[in-house]
């Protein structure tokens, strides 16, 4: 074995360096650094308006989220200037919190678009309890839980290397939460250990999702910066006890 062949676990899949992002002329992220290695799942905590969603959107490359400084490196490639579809094609997938409805486009066809190749659609839809929704327009009249399941079905079909999830548990009832948790576990290959290749970056407000999906690292965002990185369970406990304010103060 040559020295060059590193353990895959040490490979960096996503690296965000000193990222500054503007939305409509206002800077929201003031220099974010983040590194996700092979097979890792990270969670993002933080109060409303702290920039969590902006970070995810910037990683996906939506034009409204303008990078003014810093770099996003994915699998060794600088993708800072790439359009979203090229990032998707390279293996980044995102779950939308409030996806738009596309009239006349059936969920069935949407899932096929995501897959870009052959998939066992009926088995996947069965698993996500969405068989009856396949012929409906994507997101049209879907409830909160149905939207989450539909988003996850699309992501399962896309099978990205890095999954970006924005509050996957919000608006989901207990019954659906199990299903959502199971789908995320599957996306992130949580039932594997050594051969796990998928990465995740999950925004969670409540932390409920941690009951279903184990995370390796947690980050607390405040005012456009990551102020604390560490054990996600401990962070969550701290936040629950003392609130974000205290949590932010501890770093000062």
């Amino acid at each position: 074995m040559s020295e060059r062949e590193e353990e895959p676990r040490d490979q960096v899949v996503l690296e965000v360096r000193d990222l500054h992002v503007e939305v409509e002329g206002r800077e929201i992220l003031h220099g974010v650094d983040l590194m996700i290695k092979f097979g890792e799942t990270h969670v993002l905590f933080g109060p409303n308006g702290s920039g969590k969603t902006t970070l995810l959107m910037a990683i996906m490359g939506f034009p409204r989220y303008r990078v003014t400084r810093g770099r996003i490196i994915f699998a060794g490639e600088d993708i800072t200037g790439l359009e979203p579809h090229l990032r998707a094609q390279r293996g980044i997938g995102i779950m939308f919190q409030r996806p738009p409805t596309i009239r006349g486009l059936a969920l069935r066809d949407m899932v096929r678009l995501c897959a870009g190749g052959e998939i066992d659609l009926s088995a996947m839809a069965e698993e996500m309890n969405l068989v009856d929704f396949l012929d409906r327009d994507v997101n049209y009249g879907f409830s909160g839980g149905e939207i989450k399941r539909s988003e996850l079905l699309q992501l399962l079909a896309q099978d990205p290397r890095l999954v970006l999830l924005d509050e996957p548990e919000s608006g989901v009832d207990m019954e659906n939460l199990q299903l959502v948790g199971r789908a995320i576990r599957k996306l992130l290959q949580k039932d594997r250990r050594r051969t796990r290749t998928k990465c995740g970056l999950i925004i969670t407000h409540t932390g409920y999702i941690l009951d279903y999906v184990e995370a390796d690292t947690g980050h607390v965002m405040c005012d456009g910066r990551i102020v604390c990185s560490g054990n996600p369970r401990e962070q969550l406990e701290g936040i629950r006890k003392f609130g974000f304010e205290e949590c932010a103060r501890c770093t000062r």
Partner: protein
Amino acid sequence: MEGRLRQGESHQERGERMASPEDRIRELKERAMRAAGKPAPYGPDIDLSQYSCTPQECAYAEELSDIRDVDPEELARSGVDITGKGRSGSFVQLDNTIVHRKALEKGVEILGTTEALRKYDWAWEYFWNVVQVDADKYTADVELNGYEGYFIRALPGSRTVYPLQACLYIRSPRLVQRVHNIIIAEENSELHIITGCASDHRVDMALHLGISEFYVKRNAKITFTMIHNWVPGMDVRPRSGAVVEEGGVFLSNYIVMEPVRSLQLYPTARLVGEGAVARFNSVLVARPGVEMDVGSRVVLSAPRCSAEVVSRAITLGGSIVARGHLRGEAEKVKAHLECRGLILEEGGGMLAIPELEATVPNVDMSHEAAVGKIAQEEIEYLMARGLSEEEATATIVRGFLNVRIEGLPPVLEREIQKMMEISQRSAL
């Protein structure tokens, strides 16, 4: 409306109630003459004197495959399956001559309109009832200068599985194609018709005048799908009307994506029997230079009738007026109107005019209209799934035009889907 067969009335009884055919014909001619200069309320006015063509005679063909005076591919382009497979019958008219008509299933009859007038002494009673002869100069012109067209009738209780196909084709420049169609679904029958209208690419200018009168009797059903594939020099003035009796269903789908110079129509369905249903779907695409004024109107004049009018319009630089009018005249009617327009290119424009009208209190009527460009967030949603901006736009446009038509037999639905895809590929 006095010429219409009343519920439970025999043709003979009506004959006695009515004036004699000779009186009726004389009256129609007089009314037509008085209306010969009457412009239509909508659409650019057309000078009928600029058309000078004497149509060429075309040979009648016993079989579809024997039609000689038009390229089979052209027929296929207008939606005709020249093998006749999966069809319960066919009708083809070139210019003003019928070159083929044949029913392949029992229970359904296809004749030429003048042939029907000769064959049945009651047939004339179905002419100019739901479309008025003096509506405008175009209806008047059809009556005064003679017409052909199809007379399609589903016998009582008959249900054809496959659709009938009809093609109206223009091959001579400077022609006025005058068509008068009569479509009758007798009680408890079901009838599906696909009509393709097209013209030869060499036709630099021509006018299509098409009268269609639909009669949906008690508990009968007609689905009518019309696809227009004209050329940029064509002016088109269809004049259609339907009357739907108790428990009857009338579904009309109108698709026009190819260029035309001007197109104006505003068909009306009258729901006269309890629980009658009408649905109009229109799919319009206007390229630069195209002027379209397309509406659908439903008059709900019996209790518990329902209606739906849906239009999807895209301008690529042409101008579109999308109209819709619902009029509730009876208790417990339910009706919805939806006009949606997408402006993909500037240069033309879009005007949506939805109108609701009610004369009694207990009605449930609504409308929604939206005109604009494709929402950026929809494009980004698809881009995040790996589609380029162009692919995402095309996917959204396809979806926008994908009006799902309820109540069609699956065979027909597939067929229409196929035709839509062909039209879209060439239009967008």
